[in-house]
């Protein structure tokens, strides 16, 4: 394999959207066999540039060369014919069909009769080459998110992709799945594939990438930097255009009385299996309790039980002195419980309603948003304009439908709604997942601000750095139980890691 051979070159790409210059004369090159990270904040133009390369968008200006030959990409079909395959952030799979069926979908072969066992074998052969293990006979809905992503990658490899574009592939994965993905990516580059890795997680970029290109507001601020010779803070500055403070400043706040108290809580998950097993926890006013743990150990169910979205089998949840276990969700809302759900699009927002309507989801029942039966439109609009500005929600207007917002802006909208009501208790579930550095900083600042205003914050996150820098106390959840508790001062990664793996630490 000749080193440094250019696989893909993009020159002077210009792409406009109504009112936005998404790509402003962007140059990009990808070497054979490398992982090239494309870094940038939400809306910096990373996805646009890659959609151009995947044949989804046609640029107004600029040219694309594949293996030194100029190409015209008018559709994803053209792109895949040139060996360019994209794995999108949101998977494009048919849940009710098997892995093999999904891989074959849209191809000319087989033409009429579908000899699935034969194609299962071919898929297996392809898996063996790259170490991407998924049972080809299994239906998509039975797979975990990480496995579904593998199917997407297999789909592209089966179509002969030599260049794989991965749009924020780690945003939906657990830390273990990320490790597996990185192993796969490495084995692919060893076989001469080249990978474009879109991300805004700096640690991951530094871990996997050979080179880094940074975009900011549609322009390249750094092209093809060697990942070895660059630091996290340099990259962050290139991305955001200013210094980013990684350690947030935390003012001392004396914790108040117990605001949220959970006693011996047990609940089942959607499949009827025990998810919480006698969990107890207290959160004081003016305190952030960080809950660490591997995803799927009961965090989702805990947040749902507290907010009334799930019934508990036994135990109790008290807000102040008031018991609210198994009360309808409205009870929790009316008692000042804010909830940032992990599923922003599926639970936290309503896709076809406007930003303004989404912002009143929790407050529409009370004055001044409504008086009696009637919604107070001027107040709703003023409120929306104010929140849009102060939380920097980048949307064309407050009448824009929520489904048109990018992931980061959707999250800002939810944060604006949940935080602007000065909650007594804040249940924040993965509040920074998929956000860029600038937005993460803002979320952290806002959570600390809630704490200073006397809110009891339960921060459930898989980002240990986030928990260690924000929380006053840290608890670790494992299989529906609290493994142990420690103050932020005495916490270290090793200790938390052990508890996340299920060992109890006796103090």
């Amino acid at each position: 394999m000749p080193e440094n051979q250019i696989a893909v070159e993009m020159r002077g790409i210009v792409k406009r959207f109504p009112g936005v210059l998404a790509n402003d004369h962007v140059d990009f090159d990808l070497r054979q066999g490398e992982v090239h990270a494309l870094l940038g904040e939400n809306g910096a133009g990373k996805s646009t540039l890659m959609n151009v390369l995947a044949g989804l968008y046609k640029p107004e200006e600029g040219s694309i060369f594949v293996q030194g030959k100029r190409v015209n990409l008018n559709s994803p079909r053209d792109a895949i014919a040139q060996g360019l395959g994209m794995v999108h952030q949101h998977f494009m799979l048919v849940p009710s069909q098997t892995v093999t069926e999904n891989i074959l979908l849209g191809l000319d072969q087989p033409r009429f009769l579908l000899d699935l066992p034969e194609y299962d074998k071919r898929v297996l052969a392809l898996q063996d080459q790259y170490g991407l293990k998924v049972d080809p006979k299994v239906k998509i809905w039975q797979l975990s998110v990480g496995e579904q992503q593998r199917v997407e990658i297999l789909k592209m490899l089966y179509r002969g992709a030599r260049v794989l574009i991965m749009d924020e592939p780690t945003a939906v994965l657990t830390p273990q799945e990320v490790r597996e993905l990185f192993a796969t990516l490495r084995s692919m580059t060893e076989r001469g594939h080249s990978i474009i890795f879109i991300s805004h997680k700096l640690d991951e970029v530094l871990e996997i990438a050979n080179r880094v290109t940074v975009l900011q507001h549609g322009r390249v601020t750094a092209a093809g930097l060697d990942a070895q010779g660059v630091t996290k803070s340099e990259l962050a500055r290139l991305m955001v255009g200013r210094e980013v403070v990684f350690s947030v400043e935390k003012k001392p706040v004396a914790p108040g009385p117990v605001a949220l108290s959970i006693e011996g809580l047990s609940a089942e998950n959607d499949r009827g299996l025990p998810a919480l097993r006698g969990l107890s926890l207290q959160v004081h006013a003016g305190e952030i309790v960080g809950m660490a743990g591997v995803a799927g150990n009961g965090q989702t169910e805990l947040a749902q039980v507290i907010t009334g979205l799930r019934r508990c089998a036994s135990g109790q949840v008290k807000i102040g002195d008031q018991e609210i276990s198994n009360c309808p969700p409205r009870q929790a809302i009316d008692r000042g419980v804010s909830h940032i759900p992990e599923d922003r699009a599926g639970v936290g927002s309503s896709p076809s309603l406007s930003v303004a309507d989404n912002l009143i989801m929790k407050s529409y029942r009370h004055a001044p948003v409504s008086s009696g039966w009637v919604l107070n439109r001027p107040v709703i609009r003023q409120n929306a304009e104010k929140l849009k500005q102060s939380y920097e929600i980048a949307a064309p207007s407050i009448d824009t439908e929520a489904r048109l917002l990018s992931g980061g802006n959707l999250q800002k909208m939810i944060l604006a709604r949940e935080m602007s009501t000065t909650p007594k208790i804040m249940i924040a579930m993965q509040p920074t997942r998929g956000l860029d550095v600038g937005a993460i900083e803002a979320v952290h600042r806002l959570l600390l601000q809630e704490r200073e205003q006397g809110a009891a914050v339960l921060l459930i996150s898989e980002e240990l750095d986030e928990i260690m820098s924000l929380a006053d106390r840290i608890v670790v959840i494992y299989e529906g139980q609290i493994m142990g508790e420690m103050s932020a001062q005495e916490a270290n990664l090793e200790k938390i890691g052990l508890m996340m793996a299920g060992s109890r630490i006796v103090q």
Partner: protein
Amino acid sequence: MSTSTTTPSQPEQQRLRDLPRLPFRIVVEPRMNVPRWLAPATSIGAVILALVIGGVVIQFAGGDPIESYAHIFKAAFGSVGVFSDTLVKATPLILTGLACTLAFRMKLWNIGAEGQFFMGAWGASAVVLAPLLPATTPRIIMLSAMMLAGFACGALWGSVPGFLKANLNVNEIITSLMMNYIATPWILFWVFGSWSDAGFQMSPMFPKTAWLPRLTDYARQFPNLQLSGLTLHLGLAFGLVAAVVVWFILNRSRWGFEIRLTGDNPRAARYAGINIVRNTVLVMMLSGGLAGLAGMSEIAGVVHRLQGSISPGYGFTGIIIAWMAKLNAFGVILVAILFGGLLLAGREIQPSGVPRMLQGIILFTVIASDVVLRYRIRIVRR
């Protein structure tokens, strides 16, 4: 690497390269912002397009499209007299269209407006025929009682699928549809039986106190307005008021916000603390009540007796009208008048053919025109 298994698209790549290319291509992008005027403009454009397509068909069938359309227009909107008839036809359609609009906004697929229409007619008739009130009752009390009974019976009929959906998650499409086939024989049972007029399959004519006032009733009072023969009745006012009410509920009320949010994302609605079970029953009741009111208005305003053939499918047409109006309450009025006109003109031109075809094409183009609302479509040169 075995190329045979991993690159099955090799011949296809060649074929793609050999394909001739057009000098332009169509770019489809999601719209970030929909200007206010665009929704009505596309609907009007779609109707015009439908008329053009229909015109081509008429031309091929040996007719003169311009002349046919002129005739349809004259037969439906050409004079005060026929316009009054058009509005009479539009009245039940407005109410059933609103009934569907309300339910559809919550993604409750009420296919049972037809049955609710019949039950509304039955309830209103019961006031006169049972009789719950004597024929000498003052008109205003009689009519109010009929409205109430019609609305209540429709609401009751709608509440059954609503209750089953809310509490047992039974598919409301099936149940509301099936309830239609219970309502029709129920009516027949009464008009063949105890309410039969001397053995005929219809009830006796209602007393005048049970008739909704018509314009022609006031011909003698206002001789210079030429109201004589105009059959337009008070039911139209029910429709117009109901449209304002439905619009207000959906767009300006708290409850309407709950309906819209639940329709768009039920999980978010639960998260926002909305009582979906209660709202499902209530919305189905109000939807059924509106359809029931249509039934009452039709027998008290037009037929003046209960019989089996009071509806040429008003309840089902309501579904089409709601969709064509893009679930907008005021849009329902306009679409219902258009359809009322087509129903009326249909008899003038052909018992079935052309007007029905036009209905079909209009439905098709209007629903297809949604693409223009959601996406920007541009033609650019390569």
